[in-house]
């Protein structure tokens, strides 16, 4: 049973660690499916986390924190949109810029406003998204196998965790069962087809990047108000890029995105768990190797050794009416 308990704990932290990845990857999915590449997920998530921490610290309300995060994150998404949709700038360059602006400004503003070395003040439980105990979680705890799975693994997460996993089927539904989704997928493949069908390419793409902003704001909120008790500088720590890797790994499809994020979250949880202890058969695995594994896997995937990741055809290319 000891192994089982360990496994449950491992999976539990897998869930916690994969949620910010999942939210950010789903965020990227909206933008990239519409043909706007976004390597600025990291920056938007970071800005969102800071806004969440700052708002929650000032107002004492987690919901205000969430609202602030979404506003700030959408603002950055709109900057990306302005550069890459309206001015047809290089989307990669714009994304890089946003990452830097977010990294610098969160520290500068945090220090100026709160004077805690770039942190926001530590938040009380009321200003955070706390764990939610699902009904009967305590009652079934002692039921073998299913009990711990329900009470430890499924119950006891914050609202955002449940929201994140519900967003997976929701995103699938939006993408494949709604008018917006149909147009979104079309504009990422052939914007001229969308244009001649009488739909505004720019407005459609703007809506897509706003969706991205909302979800990266949610991801940032999770980091600052659920996983931690406030904003800490550079708290995204490359998660935006792992999310991007997961998005590519999942070939820009919602359900595989969830599995990719769970896999990368698991690798992270596993690395933390086994730190220093040798594994059976393999022996000592350097923790750095575990940390690098998501990136290595993505490179291997991109090289086409395990299936081929084909991005949306119009991705990265600004739309210009042809003459």
């Amino acid at each position: 049973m000891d192994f089982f308990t360990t496994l449950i704990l491992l999976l539990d932290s897998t869930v916690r660690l994969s949620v910010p990845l999942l939210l950010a990857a789903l965020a990227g999915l909206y933008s990239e499916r519409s043909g706007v590449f976004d390597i600025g997920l990291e920056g938007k998530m970071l800005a969102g986390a800071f806004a969440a921490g700052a708002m929650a610290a000032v107002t004492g309300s987690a919901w205000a924190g969430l609202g602030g995060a979404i506003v700030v994150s959408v603002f950055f998404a709109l900057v990306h949109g302005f550069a890459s949709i309206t001015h047809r700038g290089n989307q990669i360059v714009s994304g890089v810029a946003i990452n830097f602006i977010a990294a610098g400004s969160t520290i500068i503003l945090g220090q100026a406003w709160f004077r805690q070395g770039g942190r926001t003040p530590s938040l009380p439980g009321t200003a955070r998204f706390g764990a939610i105990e699902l009904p009967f979680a305590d009652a079934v705890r002692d039921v073998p196998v299913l009990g711990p799975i329900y009470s430890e693994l499924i119950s006891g997460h914050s609202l955002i965790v449940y929201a994140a996993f519900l967003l997976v089927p929701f995103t699938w539904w939006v993408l494949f069962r709604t008018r917006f989704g149909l147009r979104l997928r079309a504009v990422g493949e052939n914007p001229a087809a969308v244009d001649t069908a009488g739909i505004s390419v720019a407005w459609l793409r703007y809506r897509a990047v706003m969706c991205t902003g909302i979800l990266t704001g949610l991801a940032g909120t999770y980091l600052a108000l659920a996983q931690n008790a406030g904003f800490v500088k550079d708290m995204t720590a490359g998660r935006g890029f792992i999310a991007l890797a997961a998005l590519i790994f999942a070939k820009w499809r919602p359900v595989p995105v969830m599995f990719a994020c769970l896999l990368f979250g698991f690798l992270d949880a596993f690395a933390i768990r086994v730190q220093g202890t040798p594994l059976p058969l393999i022996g000592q695995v350097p923790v750095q190797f575990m940390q690098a594994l998501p990136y290595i896997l993505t490179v291997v995937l991109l090289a086409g050794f395990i299936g081929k990741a084909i991005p949306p055809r119009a991705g990265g290319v600004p739309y210009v009416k042809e003459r």
Partner: protein
Amino acid sequence: MSAPYAKLPAWADYGLIPLVNLAVAFLVAGLVVMLVGENPIRAAAILIEGALGRGQNIAYTLYYATSFIFTGLAVAVAFHCSLFNIGGEGQAYVGGLGVALVCLAFDSVLPWWLVFPLAVAGAAVFGAAWAFIPAYFQAKRGSHIVITTIMFNFIAASLMVYLLVNVLKPAGSQAPQTRTFVEGGQLPKLNFLLEAFGLSVRSAPFNLSFLLALLAAFLVWVLIWRTRLGYEIRMRGFSPRAARYAGVSETRIVIIAMLISGALAGMMALNPVMGDQNRLQMDFVTGAGFVGIAVALMGRSHPAGIVPAAILFGMLYQGGAELAFEMPNISRDMIVIIQGLVILFAGALEHMFRPTIQTLFASLSPRSAGIEAEAGKGS
């Protein structure tokens, strides 16, 4: 292509527009300074004073600029081949390994002037090697080089931490770094150059690799605009199909351009590792690889633009340190914001002000803004 750009005089195209973009970037940075309750004009004065005020400060400015020249050139060479190398950070990091291995092996047996060329080679080879895999995958398997180079930055960070902690750290030491190189692994300082101008420098890490950076800038200019290889790189950059038609192998040229780019990024490591710290430390690159993106964009991928852009960023780094000292609300992270704003306005929003400036020119002298012939646009 639909909005026909009126032709601007070259000085406006290569001088005025970049300057306007830069000015806007600094204007927005000024707003951030105001947002944290400081006076942006005073901040700018402190920054300039801190960067250029005394010989000591100038030496530091040039020390930082040295790194940025290398990384800026690295990004620019790849740009000319229409490749976006975001991996300068990782390539520089791994390049440091090349420098350190050479220094560790020879610092006690050879004089610095013999170790130096070996270290240059080590830096270039290791940096190039780290760029090779993304380049190969791009050329042979079509993997997007932007993504793979980002991934390789993270992989490099993990690899280097592993090596520093488990392999390179001397026994008994706690810090994850190599031993300090003895004389053979230390580059001479160039502070005397400044002193020759009557400036006084107490101690600054401004070292020989600055001259190497200038040499590299010149050689990159020769490479891109004066050699067959550079001609082929630019051809591929503008039009891969034309390059194929002209008999330029896509695989070969992409890999070569990335190797050169990686080598230049790797050579950045000479400056801090051999020129200043005299040991390989964790995270010694400190974002210089990314600054290279801003420098290349600002310098329009031309060495004549990259060197001043690198010096400007050197000023920001040095002056920013002084600024953080004087203004408690501003830390050196202000530079990161400015860097981001420069990338945004000089890069992604490069053409934002062009139509306005063109209208302006057209109204000033209608003839100077003759519309560019609508050639190359059959039906």
